[in-house]
């Protein structure tokens, strides 16, 4: 039942369909089902928005604190520092997303270059 456990050409696509598409779109469809019954300014909607926001924020923090790939080889302080610098620049420069990204990347790249020498 693993991704590479069956040689049939269609198996990987079935795997992606069930484990990827179904496992994802079922939540979207549920959202449409619920969403038709709730007013957007109700307290319930505020709660739904705060839960969604906290969930995505958790994804963000985990990508920074527990990253994959090459980023996992960098010190955590550097990654958190880069994120803080990016967010500070974003806030300081009138919510400019580009400023936030440039600041964060600059801190990360500088830190990695210093770490190499």
């Amino acid at each position, binding site marked *: 039942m693993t*991704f590479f456990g069956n040689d049939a050409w269609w198996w990987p696509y079935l795997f*992606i369909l069930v484990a990827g598409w179904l496992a994802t779109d079922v*939540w979207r469809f549920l959202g449409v089902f619920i969403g038709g019954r709730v007013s957007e300014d109700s307290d319930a909607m505020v709660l739904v*928005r705060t839960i*969604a926001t906290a969930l*995505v924020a958790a994804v963000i923090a985990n990508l920074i604190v527990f990253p994959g790939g090459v*980023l996992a080889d960098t010190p955590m302080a550097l990654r958190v520092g880069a994120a803080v610098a990016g967010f500070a620049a974003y806030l300081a420069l009138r*919510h400019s997303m580009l400023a936030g990204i440039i600041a964060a*990347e600059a801190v990360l790249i500088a830190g990695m270059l210093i770490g190499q020498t």
Partner: protein
Amino acid sequence: MSGNPSSPITDFSTATWFRRGVRAAFSLPLLMLVAAHVGFAGLAREAGLTLTQIVFATGIVWALPANVVLVGAIIGGAGLPAAAFAVALSSIRLTPMVVALVPEMRGSRTRTWVLYLLSHFVAVTSWVIAMQAIRGVPREMRTAWYAGLGGTLVLVNMIAVAVAFALAGDLPPLASAALLLLTPIYFLTSLWSSARERAGYVAMVLGLAFGPLFHLWTPGFDLLAAGLVGGFGAFGYHLASRRWGAT
């Protein structure tokens, strides 16, 4: 619709708003999403997926965190049920996002199946762009606008993943790390911009703090737990601040 003299004009402006949705897609968030998908293409290629499988997954799953979890499960040799469960857990957050968007997208004549179809486009980027801009779109044109926006985002990223896979020259570690940092910083700033009320900021700060904590305490349920605890905490703040504001 029959005998309505204004319907040709309505059709024309539907196409206009669809095109405006397409144009709204070409933005800084799209650029960053493309960069994040380039990183994903590298990850998936290393996992042993083929070009068509990666492009297929990009379009059919259409939530980068879900796709990253899916590829992670494939790398870890997970069986189909275990992989599906992990992806499902990472995608629960899509329900409240769709719940929040649907009342804003629904017009008086909107058919429900259209909403089900369009809900597939909901992921962080299109949701953030829509929550920022959809109130500037006439209510009856919002589904057309969102179809243009979402369809364009999906298509461009499927192309980006294909191109990245084909080129796939091994990036130097510095460029690779910079690319991987792009996704969280992009989410960090765009999520802050999309907050509707003060409680949204509180929810974000709580989620940032609880995500890594629950990752250590309850691995596998970290996102769900952080979302619920942070979400209810911020909602408590919302209720409390309104009470104090009213008295």
